[in-house]
């Protein structure tokens, strides 16, 4: 077992731990506003660990370039989709994503004891 393999395995272990932790977080959190926080580690940090593991294992090859290009799309898509999802959840809940417009209160229903963006109210 070479040093490269050891480093790659450590990075892969980190990525796996992040993914499993994020999955459990998405399962146990109460509503969409809390669940969305657990997508970011798996969509942002874990791909970086996987890309570094491939880089360490394979070196600077075309495979590594393809891997980093793929993970670049994942890393870009994660925050954009998270923002769009929260915006959509708020619009479904209140009619407008901005505070104080389209609803009686600017507080999300989850903080008022409701079920969050359950998809029930739609403008």
């Amino acid at each position, binding site marked *: 077992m070479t040093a490269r393999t050891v480093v790659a395995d450590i990075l892969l272990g980190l990525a796996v731990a992040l993914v499993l932790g994020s999955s459990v977080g998405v399962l146990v959190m109460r509503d969409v506003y809390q669940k969305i926080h657990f997508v970011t580690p798996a969509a942002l940090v874990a791909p970086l660990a996987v890309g570094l593991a491939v880089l360490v*294992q394979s070196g600077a090859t075309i495979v590594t370039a393809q891997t980093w290009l793929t993970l670049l*799309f994942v890393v870009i898509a994660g925050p954009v989709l998270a923002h769009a999802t929260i915006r959509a959840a708020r619009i479904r809940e209140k009619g407008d994503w901005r505070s104080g417009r389209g609803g009686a209160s600017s507080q999300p229903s989850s903080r008022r004891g409701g079920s969050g963006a359950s998809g029930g109210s739609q403008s």
Partner: protein
Amino acid sequence: MNGFVIAAIAMLLGVIPCGIVVCRGTVMEALVAYELISAIVVMVLILLPEGFRRSGEFELPLLLAVLLFGSGLVFVRFLERWL
């Protein structure tokens, strides 16, 4: 079986909690779980060719990553207003 294959199998276990959320949660919670599943599957499809030394199969995760980005935005847009 090397570390990449083991990591891919371990990551696939993370799909199970997300699948439970997709089946039992609300539609917006299912969308969040879908986004997490997309990221996991792309990483698994990177780890498996690296683990089995099949460099020709790296196009699949690249294509999937591009398509999942677009499809995620389309899902969000439709759920925002019309569904």
